[in-house]
């Protein structure tokens, strides 16, 4: 046992120690360079992952039978207050050719000016070329703030 401890120049032991040191240094370099590389070449992502947004609009500022466009990630959303006072929110991207829809108080519809598509206040496509309903969001009023979230 004492013999083993007093043989520092044993080439076999030195190789093992060098191997461990080399491996550790390599692992350390990989741990540093990998995140750096991933930062410099980030992966491709899909559409905005925004799942919730607090609007700059106050609940009192949205009159009955009116609608306002807001920014939801990089895409437009539309906040509507129905004639009965209920707040609803939808994606403002028309399901026909991706134009931005707007609110029409004269017919109480969400309307796409590009090709005259109409949606009711449940987001259902009811006239014109849009093939599908608008995506509906969840609206929560917290104190004096309106929070719009993607429905789960």
């Amino acid at each position, binding site marked *: 046992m004492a013999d083993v401890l007093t043989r520092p120049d044993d080439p076999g032991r030195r190789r093992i120690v060098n191997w461990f040191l080399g491996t550790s240094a390599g692992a350390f370099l990989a741990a540093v360079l990998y995140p750096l590389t991933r930062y410099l070449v*980030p992966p491709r*992502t899909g559409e905005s992952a925004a799942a919730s947004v607090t609007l700059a609009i106050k609940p009192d500022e949205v009159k009955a039978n009116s609608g306002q466009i807001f*920014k939801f990630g990089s895409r437009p959303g539309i906040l509507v207050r129905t004639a009965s006072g209920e707040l609803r929110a939808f994606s403002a991207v028309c399901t026909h050719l991706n*134009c931005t829809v707007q609110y029409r108080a004269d017919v109480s519809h969400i309307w796409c*000016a*590009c*090709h*005259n598509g109409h949606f009711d206040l449940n987001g259902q496509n009811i006239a014109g070329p849009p093939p599908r309903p608008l995506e509906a969001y969840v609206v929560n009023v917290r104190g004096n703030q309106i929070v719009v979230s993607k429905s789960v």
Partner: protein
Amino acid sequence: MRRVAAALAIVLACALAASAAPPAPAAKAATAPASPRPDSCVTCHLETGDDRLAGPAKAYTDDIHRAKGFGCTACHGGDPNAEGMEAMDPAKGYIGKPAGARIVQVCGRCHADARFMKQYNPSLRVDQVAEYESSVHGRRLRELKDPKVATCASCHAPHGIRPPSDALSTVHPLRVADTCGRCHADAKYMASYKIPTDQRDKYKKSVHWNAMSAKGDLSAPTCNDCHGNHGAAPPGVNWVGNVCGQCHTVMAELFGKSVHAKAFTQMGVPGCAACHDNHDIRPTGDHMVGATGDAVCASCHNPDDAGGKTATTMRGLLDALAGEWDKARGLLEKAEHAGMEVSQPQFELSSAKDALVKARAAIHAFTIEPVKAEVDGGLAIARKAHARGVRALEELRFRRTGLVVSVVIIVALIGGLLLKIRYLERPRAAGTKSS
């Protein structure tokens, strides 16, 4: 042997009854039957073992009329309580197997009676017979006694009628083209009418069929949406815009006020279909505008005439906005993928896409001004978004350069420290050796 004799007797009775008087009005149920009840018609027809006779009885089990409580006699007359051939007594209203105009008459007894139909479906239309009379089918039947034209049972599968919302119905939106195509795509059957028989195949290459069958949009048009269902007829030259305009309102309105609306009518050219075809309506694109190549305008206009010049200018405007929008979108996407916050210019760029879509619709006015108005607005938005994308990428380059410089400095520092450590350790090692 008894079964064969019974089958022959029934066929003979049908043939006799078919040439007899029309069904007695009394045969129509005045009020709704409470529930389907077993009758001698079904019993005997199933017993024959002959598919021609048993088939209708079997198919009728899934028919909506049976579900509402109607038996065979509601259409065929006769007495379901009598047994054997007595059930098929013309004196009891038996009419056998109706054909041609009599089918319309039999169905119309109930379906043209608003008060009667209200019991089952108050919102159901009751003008099918009147509509049918106006159709090419109805007119040929009435005026020419053409036995080959479609009547109610040609499209609505006799004995297996289901509501149009039922996916198995022959008039479900996804099956209408095939139902019409059973006759209209049969070159042999249609030979005497001298009309094309490729409508169904062409339709199945169209954007409308793709929207319905691949994207699941059952509101997309099929045969009956443009031709009418019970009043089926080709839309006239003057009507085409009105028909397409049921959905494509903006383009139809612009076209209706354009120079082409009147000119096309005078030339006998069908409005929308002149450029977009009728059954084989393919996806539209900017390539359709212009005076050269595969542009549809080029089929009438030369690049040098006034219309050709207008088309060329409009195409140039569209290409400019489409190119600028695409450039800005690509740049912002690149910046977004590189981790830069560009959601605001992306949000604003959607207005440029709106302008592009509106400019494409404005083409149907066939003048430069409305297209230019949309394009100018869109170009300003797209260029602004592009500039913000350029700034975002410049910021990204600056950050990366800073990162590289920082890394170089840190690496140099580490290297220097290592050298310093070795330098500090060297004299001690030398001293140890010398001692």
